[in-house]
């Protein structure tokens, strides 16, 4: 239940200086939460799933090529999304994992993507795997592919999608993420078209969310923005979602990865 919130102090001391203190205290909260996050548990479970044999081929994902060669995990996430020759497609982490579940484990796309967004009672396989694979890029600078023509096309499409207003509420991504210093309720909104704001974002997703004890992937993050924009739902790992992820990640490139993060 969402109760209205009262900051009694805020009312009695409504001045700019106090608002600054509130912001500082919320930042302190976020820092403390990040420092004592159970996010590693998801990485651990993902590692178990990565090595687990399953599907018609009774195979693990250990030979999955995430872009740096079969089975190379170190730093692979930091270079996604990227174009893959075998699929002739730009893929993000989740698209690539789905691809490997098909090619290595022999699983159908339908079965493997049946339940990709979990909940607090039952996280999804994709969430665990995302946590583990992303954790293997800690310290690596984010460097999504932009050499191949399809990678550049994905960026250009993502940029257009970011600014395209549509749907019953006339929203684009930029409606909320377009202006410096704005927030929804108490939530600060990063201006994702600006590298300075995009960098810390791409460096910390996917992430554990303390408010609902759930681990969330980038595909989920984009999906949920469409829900809030009152639009229909993006198909999982569709070119549209990967274009937006590419736009966002390229804007934030260069930042050392320090996720999976912990969010409020």
């Amino acid at each position, binding site marked *: 239940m*969402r109760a209205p919130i009262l*900051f009694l102090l805020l009312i009695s001391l409504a001045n700019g200086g106090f608002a600054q203190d509130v912001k500082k205290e919320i930042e302190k*909260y976020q820092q*403390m939460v990040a420092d004592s996050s159970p996010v590693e548990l998801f990485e651990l479970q993902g590692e178990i799933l990565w090595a687990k044999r399953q599907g018609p081929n009774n195979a693990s994902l250990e030979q999955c090529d995430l872009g740096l060669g079969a089975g190379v995990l170190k730093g692979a996430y930091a270079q996604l999304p990227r174009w893959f020759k075998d699929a002739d497609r730009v893929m993000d982490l989740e698209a690539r994992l789905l691809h490997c579940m098909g090619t290595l484990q022999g699983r159908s796309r339908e079965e493997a993507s049946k339940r990709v967004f979990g909940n607090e009672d039952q996280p999804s*396989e994709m969430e665990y795997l995302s946590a583990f694979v992303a954790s293997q890029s800690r310290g690596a600078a984010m460097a999504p592919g932009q050499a191949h023509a399809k990678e550049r096309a994905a960026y250009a499409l993502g940029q257009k999608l970011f600014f395209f207003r549509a749907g019953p509420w006339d929203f684009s991504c930029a409606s909320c993420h377009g202006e410096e210093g704005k927030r*929804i*309720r108490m939530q600060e909104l990063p201006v994702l078209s600006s590298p300075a704001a995009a960098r810390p974002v791409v460096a910390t997703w996917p992430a554990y969310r303390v*408010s609902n004890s759930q681990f969330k992937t980038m595909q989920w993050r984009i999906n949920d923005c469409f829900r809030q924009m009152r639009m229909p739902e993006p198909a999982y790992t569709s070119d549209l979602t990967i274009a937006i992820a590419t736009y966002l990640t390229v804007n934030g490139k260069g930042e050392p990865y320090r996720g999976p993060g912990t969010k409020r």
Partner: protein
Amino acid sequence: MNLLRRNTIQFAAALAATLLVPLRAFAAWNKEAFQAKTAADALKGLGVGASAESRDIVIEAPQIAENGAVVPVEITSNVPNTKSIAVVIDKNPFPLTAKFDFGEGALPYVKVNVKMGESSFVRVFAEAGGRFHTASKEIKVTIGGCGG
């Protein structure tokens, strides 16, 4: 894969673990104190009598928690010979949240994430040499944005 819910395999594994590991001498959970619905009753259950305010107990916690589901609280007792630390959240349905007994080899320090139903004082009681020392900190609980 289900990490958070028990199933029979895990139960069997847990059972096996209990057989393999030497019997743990768990300090019996203080039911009376933990099931108390007021801070006063909880303290009575713990046997905490008069307590003195002390600056030697340091509570590191945010003044504002964006979400009550996870509120990190870090407690250090600098009171010499601290034997135990108890954490009481006044406004929670069951105020007593944790009690730690420290033996030789452990510093009287703990960091834990707690749930808070609403804004409240968080009080810490440290026992040293048969006396109780206390410190408190008010934490305001709010919620964040529209679900983003």
